[in-house]
C-alpha cells in the first residue's frame, strides 16, 4: 500500500497546528493561574488539610470545601475566568486537530496511526489531554491546573514532531496484526492517564511543602514551593493522583497482557524479557507498589507520591531510552 503523500503532508501540518493551539491553551492556563485564585492561601487552613492527610486520605471530609478559594477581586476573577474558558476551548480544539492529524496519518498509510514513537507520543498526548478534560467534568475547580498538564503534553508533541519525527510509512510485517490496535491503544491510554497522575503527584509534593512551611509559620519564598499557594489542598491532589493511577492501572495491566498475547502469536512466546517487556514489568511492579504504599501506614503521603513519580519515570525511560538506546524486538522507533 503506497503512502498518500498529500494526506501525509496534511497530517504533518495538522500536527504542527495542534502544537500551536495547545501552546495557546497553555498560555491561557498560565494567565488564569496568574490572575486568579489569589488569596486562597488565607482561606485554606493548612492545619485542616494536614490533619486529613495524616488521618489517611481514604477518609475525612470531602475536601472540596477545603479547596474552595477565597474570591479575589471581582475584576481579576472575571479576567482569570475568561482566560480559563479560552484555555479549555483551545485545549479541546487542539485535541480535535491532533486527532485529525492522527486520522489523516492513518488514512495516508492505510493503517492504525500508532506504529512509531512519534505517533505513539501523539496518542499519549491526546489521551493525557482527554483525561484532564475528563477530570474537569468531575472536578471543574481544578481547571486552572491545566498548565501543568498541557506543559508536558506540548513538550511531548514537540519532541514527537522533531526528535522522534518519522515519515508516514507502512508497518513491518510483524506489526500487521489487529493486536496493534488493542495493545498500542491501551498502552497509550494507560500512559496518558499515568501522565496526568504524575502531574497531580508533582503538584501534591509542591503543595505539601508549601503547607508544611505555612504550618511552621514561615512564608515560602523559594520556587516552586511558592506555586503551592494557588494549588488545591494536598488532599484533593492526592486523591486526583490516586484515582487516575487506579483508573490507569487495570488498563495498563490489560495492555501488557494484550502485548503478551500478541507476542505469543508473533514471536512464539508470551513473555521473553525483551528490554521493552522488562521495563513494562518494572513499571507495573512500581505502580502496584504505589497502590499498596498509599494504603500502608508510614508510606502514605509523600513516600507514596515519590513511588508514583518513580513509576512514571520508569515509563518515560521505557519510551525514550529503551526505544532509542537499548535494542530489542520492540525496535520500531522509526528512527535511524
Amino acid at each position, binding site marked *: 500500500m503506497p503512502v498518500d503523500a498529500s494526506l501525509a503532508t496534511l497530517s504533518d501540518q495538522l500536527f504542527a497546528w495542534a502544537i500551536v493551539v495547545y501552546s495557546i491553551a497553555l498560555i491561557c492556563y498560565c494567565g488564569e493561574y496568574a490572575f486568579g485564585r489569589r488569596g486562597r492561601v488565607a482561606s485554606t487552613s493548612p492545619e485542616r488539610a494536614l490533619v486529613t492527610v495524616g488521618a489517611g486520605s481514604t477518609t*475525612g471530609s470531602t475536601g472540596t470545601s477545603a479547596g474552595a478559594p477565597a474570591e479575589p477581586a471581582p475584576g481579576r476573577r472575571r479576567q482569570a475566568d475568561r482566560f480559563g474558558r479560552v484555555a479549555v476551548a483551545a485545549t479541546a480544539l487542539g485535541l480535535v486537530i491532533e486527532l485529525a492529524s492522527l486520522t489523516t496519518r492513518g488514512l495516508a498509510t492505510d493503517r492504525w496511526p500508532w506504529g512509531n514513537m512519534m505517533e505513539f507520543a501523539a496518542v499519549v498526548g491526546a489521551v493525557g489531554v482527554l483525561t484532564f478534560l475528563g477530570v474537569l467534568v468531575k472536578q471543574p475547580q481544578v481547571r486552572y491546573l491545566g498548565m501543568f498538564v498541557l506543559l508536558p503534553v506540548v513538550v511531548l508533541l514537540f519532541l514527537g514532531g522533531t526528535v522522534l519525527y518519522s515519515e508516514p510509512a507502512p508497518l*513491518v*510485517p510483524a506489526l500487521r496484526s489487529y493486536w496493534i490496535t488493542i495493545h498500542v491503544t491501551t498502552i497509550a491510554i494507560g500512559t496518558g492517564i499515568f501522565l496526568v497522575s504524575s502531574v497531580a503527584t508533582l503538584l501534591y509534593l509542591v503543595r505539601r511543602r508549601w503547607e508544611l512551611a505555612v504550618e511552621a509559620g514561615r512564608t515560602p519564598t523559594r520556587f516552586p514551593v511558592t506555586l503551592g499557594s494557588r494549588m488545591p489542598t494536598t488532599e484533593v491532589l492526592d486523591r486526583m493522583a490516586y484515582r487516575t493511577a487506579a483508573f490507569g492501572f487495570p488498563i495498563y495491566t490489560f495492555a501488557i497482557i494484550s502485548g503478551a498475547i500478541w507476542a505469543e502469536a508473533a514471536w512464539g512466546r508470551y513473555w521473553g524479557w525483551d528490554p521493552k517487556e522488562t521495563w513494562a514489568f518494572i513499571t507495573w511492579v512500581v505502580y502496584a507498589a504505589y497502590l*499498596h504504599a498509599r494504603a500502608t501506614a508510614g*508510606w502514605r503521603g509523600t513516600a507514596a507520591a515519590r513511588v508514583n513519580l518513580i513509576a512514571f519515570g520508569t515509563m518515560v525511560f521505557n519510551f525514550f531510552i529503551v526505544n532509542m538506546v537499548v535494542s530489542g524486538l520492540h525496535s520500531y522507533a522509526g528512527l535511524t
Partner: protein
Amino acid sequence: MSTPVRDVDVDPGELSTQPAPVEPPRGGPLAHLRNAWRRLTSMRTALVLLFLLALASVPGSLLPQRPLNPIKVDQYIADHPQLSRVLDAAGFFDVFAAPWFAAIYLLLFVSLVGCVVPRLKQHALAMLRPPPIVPRRLDRLPMSDSYPASGTPTEVAAAATRALRGWRTVTRTEDDGTVTVAAEKGYLRETGNLIFHFALVLLLGGIAVGRLLGYQGTVLITEEDPGICNAAPLYDSFRPGRLVDGSGLAEFCIDRLDDYTTTYEADGTPAEFRADITYSAGADGAPTQYPLRVNSPLRVEGLRVYLVSHGFAPQFTIRTPDGTEVRDVSAPFLPLDGALLSEGAVKLLDTVDPQLALFGLFAPTAARSEDGTIRSLDSRPNLPAVAVEVYRGDLGLDSGAPQSVYAIDQRQVTNGALKVVANVLLTKQSPTVRLDDGTTITYEGYREWATLQVNHDPGQTVVLWAAGAIVLGLLLSLSVRRRRLFLRITPASTAPGGSVDNSAPVDDGSPPDPDGRTVVAVGGLARTDAGSYDTEFARVVERLRDTSELRKD
C-alpha cells in the same frame, strides 16, 4: 438477631495486610518464628520486595542476556573481562533465571499468600456477618443528615430497607424503641482484591509448568527437501524444559516446505512472509497444508509452529570430466544483513572424488562494493549472484571433529589437505566455471528456505486464564467502593439526644421535628476511597426521604 459489635472506624487501608503489629518476641523460638512470619507477611515487607523485584529486573534489560542474545554476551565478556567475571558468577547475564531473582519473587509470593489467605477467611466471615451495630451518634460520621418521616419507626425502616436495593441491610430494634438500619455494600471490592492476588499465584504456577514441561525445537527446511518429525534429535536446536527428557513428544511431522514467499510493498519493504507447509499431526494424521505467516502460527496437537526466518539456498550442478553429474546440489546460506547478503557452504563428500566445496556469499540483488567484494542492494531476488571460493581436497569430515555446515574447516586449509582452486562470481548470465581438471560448476539458481520453530507450553492456557482473572480482580477491587450507611429512626414520642440534639454540631443543623414526627438520622461512612461518596450519600438520602414522603400520602 444477635450480632457482634464491630468497630466502625475506617480500616487502615483495604489493600493492607492483616493488622499485624510486630510485637516484641516473648521468649522461645516459636515466638521468634511467629514474629518473623508476621514481618514477612506485612505490607512493608511486600513493598520492599516489590521494589527489589523492580530493581533486580533492571540489569536484565541493560546487560546482554544469554537467553536473548548469547553472541552479545560473549562480546560483552570480551570487552570487559574483569567486570564480566564477577557479573557472570553472580548470574547477571541471565538475570531472570538467577537464584537471587528467584529468591525475591518467591519471597514476595510467600508474603502475598501469607497475607491473602487470612484475608480470605476474614472476607468469608464478613460476607456471612450482617452489617455492624449502628453507632449512637451518626452526626459524628463523615457524612450525616436527618429528616422527619411519617409512620412508625418499624414502617420507616421497612420502607428504607426496600429503597436500599443493592445494599446488605439489617434492622435492629433498641430498648428505647429506636429502630436502626445498618447497610453495607461493596463486598465485591475485597472479592476482586482476593481474585487478583490468587490469580497472581496461579499465573506463577502456569509459568512454572511451562518452564518444567515445555520445549522448543528449531529447524531449517529448504523448499523441496524432506521435513522432520517432532523428536528432539531431529531438530537443529532443541531447548527442553527441566522435566522434559525429549521422549514421548506430541506426534507431529512437518512433511515439507512447499513454498516460501515474501511479498513486498511498492517501495521494496517486505509486506508479508509466508511459508506454505505440509504437516501431519496425530498418530496417523493425513497430510494437511497450512500457510504459515508472521502473526499466524499453526496450532495443532498442543504445539505451535512459527515461521522464524528465511533465506536463500543457491543451487549448483557439478560435472566431472569422467562424466559424473551431480545435479541441483544446494545448501542454505545464512543472512548477514537486511538485504539478505548470505554466507554458506555447499559440500560434496561422496559424490565426487576428490571432495569439493563451495564457500562464499549469495546476494539476491548483487552489486560490487568499492573493494571488489559482492554486496546486496535489496532482499528481493532481482539480480541474484553468488561469489564462491571453490575448495578441493579433504574436507576433514571423516576425522569426526564437528564442523559448521555453513563454513569450511580452515584447519584443513592450513594443513594443506584442502586447496582453493577457483574464486569466481557466478550469475544467471555467466553461470559456469571450469576448473583446472575440467570439472564444471554451474550456478542453477536458488531455492528458498525457512526456519520453523515448534513450541510446546502446557502452562500457557493457565497463564492466559490467570491473566484474565488478574484484570477482572483489578477492575473490581479498584472500581467497587465499600460503603456503609446507618439509619437511626427515633419514634416521635421519645426524642433523645443523639443525632437530633441541637447542641451537637449537626452538619445540616436540622432541629427535632416540631410536629413530633418520627425522625430519621442518617450517617454514611466510606470504608475505602471516599471518592464521591458525598454526592452518592446525598442521592441516597434524597431517595430515602422520598420513600418516607410517599408513605405519608
